[in-house]
C-alpha cells in the first residue's frame, strides 16, 4: 500500500517535470507551424528570427536602411535602458525623500497629499504629447514622464509603508534614547525598505514598457524608435527581435530586483498559517 503511494507520487512528479521541460520548445513548435500556415508576410519564421538575433546586435543592414544607424540594435537597447534606469532611479530617490519629508513635517503632508492623489490616477503617457510640444523630443521630455511615474509610485508606497511601521517599535526606540531623527534612520527606514523594493520591482517593469512607447511616439533612438522604423519596412523579423529584447531585459530587471528583495527581507519572519 505504501509502495503504491510512493510510486504514484514519483509518477506524478515525473509528468510535471517533463511538461515544464517541453513547454518552451512546444511554444516554438507552435510558432513554426503558425508561420507555415500564415506565410512570412504575416508572421516571421522562428528560424529566421534566431538566425538574425545575435548578428543584428551590432549590425543590421535593414535597420541602417530604415534610418536606425549602422550599429545595429545595441545603441538602441542601451538608449532605452539608460533612459529607463536613470529616470526611474531619480524619480524613486525624489519619491522616498518627499515621502519621508511629508511624514516628518505634517504641514507638507496636508498640502501635498491631494495633488499627489490627483496626479497618481492620471495615465503617465497622457503627458507625452504635451511635453514633446513644449520641450521638443529631447531626452528631457522622454525621461520626465518616467521620473514623474517613478516618483508617484514610490511616494505613495513610502507614505503607506511609513503608516505601517510598528508604533511599539518606535516607542521602544525612544525609551532606549533614540532621537526623532535616529528613529527615522534606524527604525522607519529599515521597516519600509521591503515594501519599497517591492513597489519598485513592479514599477520599473511598467516604466520600461512606457519608455518603449514614448520612443514610439517620436524619439530619435531607442527600441521604440526601432519599432517605428521597422513598421515602414514591414520587417517583421526585426520587430520580433525587438520584442524579444524588451522581454529579456524586463526579465533581467525583475530577477535582479527579486534578488535584492530577497536580501532586504532576509530578516522577515515567514507567515505560516
Amino acid at each position, binding site marked *: 500500500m505504501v509502495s503504491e503511494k510512493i510510486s504514484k507520487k514519483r509518477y506524478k512528479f515525473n509528468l510535471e517535470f517533463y511538461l515544464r521541460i517541453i513547454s518552451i520548445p512546444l511554444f516554438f513548435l507552435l510558432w513554426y507551424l503558425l508561420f507555415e500556415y500564415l506565410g512570412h508576410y504575416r508572421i516571421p519564421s522562428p528560424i529566421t528570427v534566431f538566425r538574425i538575433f545575435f548578428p543584428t546586435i551590432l549590425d543590421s543592414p535593414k535597420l541602417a536602411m530604415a534610418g536606425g544607424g549602422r550599429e545595429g540594435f545595441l545603441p538602441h537597447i542601451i538608449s532605452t535602458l539608460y533612459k529607463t534606469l536613470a529616470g526611474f532611479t531619480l524619480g524613486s530617490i525624489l519619491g522616498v525623500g518627499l515621502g519621508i519629508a511629508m511624514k516628518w513635517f505634517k504641514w507638507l503632508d496636508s498640502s501635498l497629499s491631494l495633488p499627489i492623489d490627483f496626479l497618481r490616477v492620471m495615465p503617465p503617457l497622457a503627458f507625452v504629447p504635451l511635453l514633446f510640444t513644449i520641450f521638443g523630443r529631447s531626452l528631457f521630455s522622454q525621461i520626465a514622464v518616467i521620473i514623474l511615474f517613478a516618483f508617484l509610485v514610490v511616494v505613495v508606497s513610502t507614505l503607506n509603508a511609513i503608516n505601517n511601521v510598528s508604533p511599539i517599535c518606535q*516607542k521602544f526606540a525612544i525609551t532606549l534614547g533614540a532621537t526623532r531623527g535616529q528613529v527615522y534612520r534606524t527604525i522607519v527606514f529599515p521597516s519600509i525598505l521591503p515594501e519599497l523594493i517591492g513597489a519598485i520591482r513592479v514599477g520599473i517593469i511598467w516604466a520600461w514598457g512606457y519608455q518603449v512607447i514614448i520612443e514610439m511616439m517620436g524619439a530619435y533612438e531607442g527600441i521604440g524608435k526601432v519599432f517605428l522604423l521597422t513598421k515602414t519596412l514591414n520587417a517583421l523579423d526585426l520587430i520580433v527581435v525587438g520584442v524579444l529584447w524588451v522581454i529579456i531585459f524586463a526579465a533581467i530587471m525583475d530577477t535582479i530586483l527579486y534578488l535584492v528583495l530577497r536580501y532586504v527581507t532576509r530578516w522577515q519572519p515567514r507567515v505560516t498559517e
Partner: protein
Amino acid sequence: MTVNVKPIVKLVDIVKSYKTEQGQEIHVLNNLNAEIPEGEFVVIVGPSGCGKSTLLFIIAGLEPVNSGTVYLYDVKVTKPSSKLGVVFQETAIFYWRTVLGNAQYGLEMKGIKKDKRREIAMKYLKMMNLQDFINSYPKELSGGMKKRLAIAMVYANDPEVLLMDEPFTGLDYPIKCRLQMDLLNIWDKEKKTTIFVTHDVEEAMMLSDRILVLDRKKIVLVYDNPFERPRKNKLRDEERFIKEVQKLRSRFIYL
C-alpha cells in the same frame, strides 16, 4: 522590609482620565501618590483595565497626566528618555537587526564606540543566556528568548529605573516561571530600581520587595513581601507561599 533610602521615583497627586470616542470621560487615576526607593523591586498589581499600564506609561513619560507630577530624583518627568527603560507587553525588538545589533541599540544611539558597546551588550546577553545567538535574526528566536532579548536590551542601556508592563503575560506557565527566574538573576546583580506591572498575584509575590495594589483609581494597599531572597522556583510549591498569595488575592478582591 523598610529601607531608609531616598525615594528615586515619586508620584504626586496623579490624575488621569481618557475621553472615549463617544465623548465620555473615563477617570483612570485619581490623586494617586506613591514613593519608590532606590534599588527596590516594586510590583503594581490590580485587576485588568484598572489603569496600571497607564500608570507605568505615565511614569515613563510616554503618557501625559491631567494633573500631578512624576519625579525622578526630584526632577520632573515630562517626556520619555533612556533614564526610564521600558519593557513592553508586546515584544518590541527590532527584527531587521541581529540579536547583538538589538542589544547594542541604545548604546549605539548614545554614540558609544563599537568595541565598548559590543562588550557591554555581550555582558547582558550572556546574563540572559543568549550568547549563542548573537548573529541570528530575531525571527529565529522563540517567544521566551525574544523577551529575554528585550530585557537584555534595556539593561544594557543602563537606565535609572526599569519599567516593565506585564512582560510575561500570555506566555505559558513554565516559560513564565523560567523568565521570572532570569529576571531575578539579572536584577540581583545590579539591584536596579524596577517597577513591574502585572495582574498575576503569584508573579508579584515571587518577584517583589513590595507590592502596590491599584484599585479604584488609587493605591489601596502597600504590602511588604515577607519572603527572603534569593527566591527559587520551588518556593511556589511551599505551603506558606501559596497561603500568602491566597491571602493577598482575597484582600484586594474584596477591597
